[in-house]
């Protein structure tokens, strides 16, 4: 609708019209890029009896489609124009790129306003969560019986693979994507990110990655789960190529997002705002960004090696050709373990950021909390071989990895100390976000303690690769990160849209979600400890009772998530209720000081005098909303 209106307006530059149609051009570009890439790939690797050149055609075709999509969206306009010395973007071009005309259309095209990108992220993250959740429902339905029922062994493995990889995509950006992009620049008093075009790129890499991943169902799926272990990956059908390219695109997104966040937080802070005065959420994002920037390139490299294995029999991971499966395991987990802290550190930050608002008390131990998160970030690089305790390599190093893994519980416990210190003798307000904060603390506690059993080498011999591990990381990712995501959406929705979610409905949804989540994964902790391996379509009939219990709770959990989605859409799009107050939670956070809606460039002049936003101790005095002339009035031009 908006697209039509804009194109019809006379005197619109062609480049704006092209950008307006970006999604359509992106799809055209993706198809063209795929055909071109497949053609090149098919001819690049000469066909011989010993190589399967359709892998080359497919992989290069996928890469071509991603590049074509991004080119169609308009990502190449600026770099190519600068490279060739063509005209600089005019002010009108920049204004258009920032979506200063308003309207819904700006959410569907290349837009470099960090707030638009934050909203785009929320939509895509929630979409990923529900696609992955649907997979989980199918898996639990299949496991109602100990023998394969409606799913074949092949389709079951594809289900497991799709559920896990799409959820990894979701979890990699669930907090940092929506809330990091939307609020970090505002929290530090910046007019935007350091590299706005790069920020848009990190988002627009996700939709092609998801589509490429889902296309695996037409190519036979992939049997390896999200860990992609070689040499199984070497011998798999072509659906494996979808996993390789899609995961690499997401790796690129994680890396670039980290780089951009680090540059922004270092260079774009408001004058006088010291690092030791940043909101703790910004610190969580900052530390995570180092992990993402440094770990994701390893993932992309190892996926590239696997692609070479599949295209040209490079045998990096095949012993018969001089390679070794341990190379994949080491490189993958060297990325994979920092990756799980990429999931959880921003969630720590968000939880500790919201906690003072609802405890009505300052954040207790701000500096020691930051120290804890830095400690987690550093230690996360030294633990990856705890995934390989039973693999048969380096037995003499096992005590080291056991110690380093158990040592992570020290900085993690500091986060709990900060939370307890903040809650100590507070005047808590049990709103929906506060309930999600409490659930986060409880679920992550179980996740963390189950991790202690896994970090101990002798017990890991029994628990490794069982449902105990599966339940352990679901407690940390689903029970903690996804609970933080939903709490965060509830908390920030009035700030983003001006609409609040229905409180009573939110509480009912919370309790169903919390109880059914724990019912599901306590059952799975138990089947794991009783010896049920992960990723199996058939299992010991003696464990059917616990599996049925897990499945039934999981269906209730799925229904509660669906209820949240309907509630979210209902309260924002169908029957939006204007929030009574600009700041319904009476938060002192700087992000709540701007008018609603927040102007495109946030501030007309750099804000001054921003300190730590946790002064809740002045005994319930009303917070100073709209303070200090720092905000530009709505619609002001700059």
């Amino acid at each position, binding site marked *: 609708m908006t697209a039509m209106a804009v194109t019809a307006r006379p005197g619109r530059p062609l480049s704006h019209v092209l950008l307006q149609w970006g999604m359509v051009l992106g799809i055209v570009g993706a198809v063209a890029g795929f055909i071109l890439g497949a053609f090149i790939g098919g001819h690049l690797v000469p066909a011989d009896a010993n190589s399967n050149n359709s892998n080359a055609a497919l992989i290069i075709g996928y890469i071509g489609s991603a590049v074509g999509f991004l080119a169609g969206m308009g990502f190449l306009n600026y770099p190519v124009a600068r490279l060739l010395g063509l005209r600089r973007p005019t002010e009108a071009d920049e204004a258009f790129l920032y979506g200063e005309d308003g309207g819904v259309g700006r959410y569907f095209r290349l837009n470099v306003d960090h707030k638009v990108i934050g909203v785009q992220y929320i939509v895509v993250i929630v979409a990923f969560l529900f696609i992955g959740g649907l997979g989980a429902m199918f898996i639990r339905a299949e496991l109602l019986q100990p023998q394969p029922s409606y799913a074949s062994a092949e389709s079951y493995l594809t289900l497991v693979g799709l559920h896990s990889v799409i959820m990894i995509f979701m979890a990699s950006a669930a907090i940092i994507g929506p809330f990091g992009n939307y609020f970090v620049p505002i929290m530090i008093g910046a007019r935007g990110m350091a590299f706005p075009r790069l920020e848009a790129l990190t988002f627009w890499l996700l939709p092609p990655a998801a589509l490429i991943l889902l296309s695996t169902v037409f190519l036979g799926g992939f049997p390896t789960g999200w860990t992609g272990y070689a040499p199984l990956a070497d011998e798999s059908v072509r659906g494996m190529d979808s996993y390789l390219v899609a995961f690499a695109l997401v790796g690129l997104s994680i890396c670039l997002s980290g780089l951009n966040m680090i540059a922004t937080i270092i260079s774009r802070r408001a004058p006088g705002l010291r690092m030791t005065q940043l909101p703790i959420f910004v610190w969580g994002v900052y530390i995570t960004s180092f992990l993402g920037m440094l770990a994701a390139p390893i993932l992309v490299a190892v996926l590239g090696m696997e692609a070479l294995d599949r295209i040209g029999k490079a045998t990096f991971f095949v012993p018969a050709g*001089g390679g070794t499966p341990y190379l994949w395991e080491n490189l993958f987990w060297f990325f994979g373990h920092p990756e799980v802290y990429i999931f959880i550190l921003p969630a720590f930050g968000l939880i500790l950021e919201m906690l003072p608002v609802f405890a009505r008390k300052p954040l207790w131990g701000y500096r020691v909390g930051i120290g804890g998160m830095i400690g987690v970030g550093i230690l996360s690089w030294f633990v990856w071989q705890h995934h390989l305790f*039973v693999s048969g390599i380096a*037995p003499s190093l096992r005590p080291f990895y056991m*110690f380093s893994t158990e*040592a992570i519980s020290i900085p993690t416990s500091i986060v709990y100390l900060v939370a307890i210190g903040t809650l100590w*003798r507070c005047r808590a307000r049990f709103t929906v976000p506060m309930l999600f904060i409490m659930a986060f603390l409880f679920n992550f506690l179980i996740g963390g303690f189950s991790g202690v059993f896994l970090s101990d*080498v002798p017990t890991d011999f029994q628990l*490794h690769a069982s449902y105990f591990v599966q339940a352990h990381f679901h407690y940390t990712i689903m029970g903690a990160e996804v609970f933080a995501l939903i709490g965060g959406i509830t908390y920030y929705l009035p700030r983003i849209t001006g609409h609040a979610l229905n409180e009573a409905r939110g509480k009912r949804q919370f309790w169903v979600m919390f109880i059914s989540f724990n019912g599901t994964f306590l059952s799975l902790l138990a089947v794991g*400890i009783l010896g049920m391996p992960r990723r199996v379509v058939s299992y010991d009939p003696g464990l059917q009772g616990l599996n049925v219990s897990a499945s039934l709770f999981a269906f209730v959990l799925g229904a509660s998530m669906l209820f949240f989605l309907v509630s979210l859409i209902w309260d924002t799009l169908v029957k939006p209720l204007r929030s009574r107050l600009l700041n319904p939670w009476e938060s002192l956070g700087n992000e709540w000081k701007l008018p609603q809606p927040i102007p495109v460039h946030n501030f007309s002049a750099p804000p001054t005098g921003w300190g730590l936003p946790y002064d809740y101790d002045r005994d319930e005095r009303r917070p100073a909303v709209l303070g200090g002339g720092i905000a530009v009035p709505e619609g002001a031009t700059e």
Partner: protein
Amino acid sequence: MSPTRRLVLTLAAVWVGAVAVGSIVFALITFPPQPASNVSQSIQDTIRLITFAAWPIFSLVVIAIIGTLLVRRRAPDAAPLPPSELRGNPRLAGTWIGVVSAIVLVLGIIGTITLNNEQSAQVVGATGGSANIANLEVQVIAQQWQFTYRYPSYGGFESAHLVLPVNANVTFHVTSLDVTHSFWYPAMGVKADAVPEHDNVVSAQPLQIGPYRIVCGELCGLWHGAMSDDAAQVMSASDFVNWAQQQQTADAPIMKYLPPYSDTYVPNPGAYGS
């Protein structure tokens, strides 16, 4: 008594009660896995130990959070809190870090000792060799999607089901013919990845006679879920010798078709590359 002091004492009393109840419960229940070998026995002990160590901290955190929220909320006109309860308390934070570090250190040391005991047991088994019933070597050969067991000290015959003599020091040599699998014998507490061209050595001493189940612990493709040995057995030493001799005789005609015993096998060297 100051309100802070009263709150601390109340929560401490609840916590002591929770630790006591928890400890009694943990002392009464049986922890998995079933102690069918010396290894699974020590795993069971370690799981119990970690549970005992973890429960006080777990309950402390839960009680601190729920207790401080529910037991006592400050009146609106109450006096402001002192800075140590409001902004932070370096001494308390230091104590906390020290206590958690000490617990981690102790758990790590106990884990290392347990691990060393298990590994030195492996060395004894590995050097034992020969047809000595007290020190048995078994090779586990994984392939998509089954395990095969080879008994080098009985002429290298192969069996589709794992049969072990009770009370013997058994050393498993685990390898794979294709992709990575994992030999998981839950009742014995044994799990070792089967990696192509790698000899992964673990050991255990079976202590209970009975039928058991072995499963694959690493995703290995289509029929991973169905890759199991449902007829594994531990039997008395004399039964085992009888069984082994029977198998040896039965397999004698086909022994010449089997590859000679070695740590790893490459059944199809032309499958990849070169």
